[in-house]
């Protein structure tokens, strides 16, 4: 599915990713863990073409996407939910979803499927997105990304600042995506959340892959967590 091989990326002169490699497989939840500034968000942005990759390469199902214009990458089936949700605040819930559907050339069936995952959005279709609660905004950001019908979903701290019931819902949706064969790359700060949903965990340190392991390994060996993220 997704193969990131030894990529370098920088913001101007500040090198952030240094030969970083990961792979994400269909029907798998890959969690990225690391301290602040380790390069997790930059990695997702590099995959989406938002940060120029200066070395290495990224392929999706064997197709090289490293040099593609940013707007062509989602069309290959990559849904990206950035930190902070980034909704179209002045548009209604229905219009936000519509824009996702149009982008992914998806039909009404997809809309119904997505709304079934988030029934609360169905009750607020005519409401402006910037008047939703934080949890509802996260639901909408997730719903809009799912409207693309992605085969790879990139989520950047989707549970940040949410109440427990919303966190549980988002986790449920992530599992549902896995069950449908979608590859999920999840950036998370909360170790408990990672241990609960991840199939594989990659630690990122100073822009490099420090460890690629299974969550069971972390449960049995908490020293790893302490060494890599300080908990």
């Amino acid at each position, binding site marked *: 599915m997704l193969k990131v091989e030894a990529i370098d990326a920088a913001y101007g002169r500040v090198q952030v990713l240094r030969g970083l490699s990961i792979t994400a497989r269909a029907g798998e939840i890959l969690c990225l863990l690391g301290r602040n500034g380790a390069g997790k968000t930059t990695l997702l942005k590099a995959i989406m073409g938002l940060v120029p990759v200066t070395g290495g390469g990224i392929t999706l199902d064997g197709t090289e996407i490293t040099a593609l214009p940013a707007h*062509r990458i*989602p069309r290959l089936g990559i849904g*990206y939910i950035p930190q902070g949700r*980034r909704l179209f605040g002045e548009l209604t819930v229905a219009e936000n979803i*519509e824009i996702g559907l149009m982008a*992914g050339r998806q039909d009404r069936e997809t809309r119904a499927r997505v709304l079934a995952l988030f029934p609360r959005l169905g009750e607020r279709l005519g409401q*402006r997105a910037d008047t939703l609660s934080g949890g509802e905004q996260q639901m909408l950001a997730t719903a809009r990304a799912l409207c*693309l019908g992605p085969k790879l979903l990139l989520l950047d701290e989707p549970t940040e600042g949410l109440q427990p019931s919303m966190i549980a819902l988002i986790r449920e949706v992530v599992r549902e995506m896995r069950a449908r064969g979608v590859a999920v790359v999840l950036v998370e700060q909360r170790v408990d959340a990672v241990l609960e949903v991840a199939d594989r965990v990659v630690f990122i340190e100073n822009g490099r892959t420090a460890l690629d392991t299974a969550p069971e390994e972390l449960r049995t060996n908490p020293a790893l967590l302490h060494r890599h993220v300080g908990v």
Partner: protein
Amino acid sequence: MTQRILALHLGLIGLLFVLQFVLPPYHHDNIARIMVMAAYAMGYNLMFGYTGLLSLGHAMFFAAGMYGMGLSMQHAGFAAEAALAVGITAGFGLALGVGLLALRTTGVAFMIVTLMFAQALFLAILYFGPFTRGDEGFVIPLSARIFAGLRLSDPTIRYFAALALFALVLLAMLWLIRHPVGRVLIAIRENEERTRMLGYDTWRHKLFAVTASGTISGTAGAVYGLLFGYVGASFAEVPYSIFPLLWVLLGGAGTLVGPFIGTLFMFYLIDLASGVTDAYMLVVGVALLLLTLFAPRGIMGMLRERWLPWLP
């Protein structure tokens, strides 16, 4: 499309239609002028209010339409119909060219580039004075202002023609912003990067917005010249780039009826204030300041925010 949105816009067109029968000649002429200028402002609103692209040089499109129409009549002897087509094409061509170049920039740089292009056109009009009649401009003779057999100098015909342009642009804009492309333009205004991340080519959409906006503005310029019989360099100057920005801000950026309300408000504010004092711009300035303080989203924007959330 919801019934009430359609009813509001058709109602406005109907009201303007009926007004001509009750207005005294002075206001009759004013409203005709305002409708043409409101069409110009709606063109501006497509780019600024809906797409979030702030241009400081929109007068170039208005003037391109006006001069395209006027010069083709003056020098090539075109009839009004053909001259109007030349004016619209000039607005379209210039907007496409400017869009292709200016959209390589963003933000403040985009504003400066559009301002520079507009100044270049203004100076070109002066430089080629023997051809354009420089800052004096020229008058379109009454005999040439006949469109499909109708005398455009006749106040009633003129009012109808202005109303036809206004209605056409208003309904086209209503259709466009409810069309998927219009939704994407609003999404770009709200968050361009996010829109790109959904797979939209935002550059192409912005080019469409600039081109459509410039074409509407050029059409308004061509129609203005035909209806009021004068083509002049003053329409290419900086104030005519700032006016649509003020009209749109006053009426409500990103609202369909806002540009008309803003144009109407500003026109009559200047008209009334200049009848009271020579320092009328001071009165206008204070009024603008108050409106900015108490209704920062403009008149229609405030109405939409407080009472009419369904307003497009």
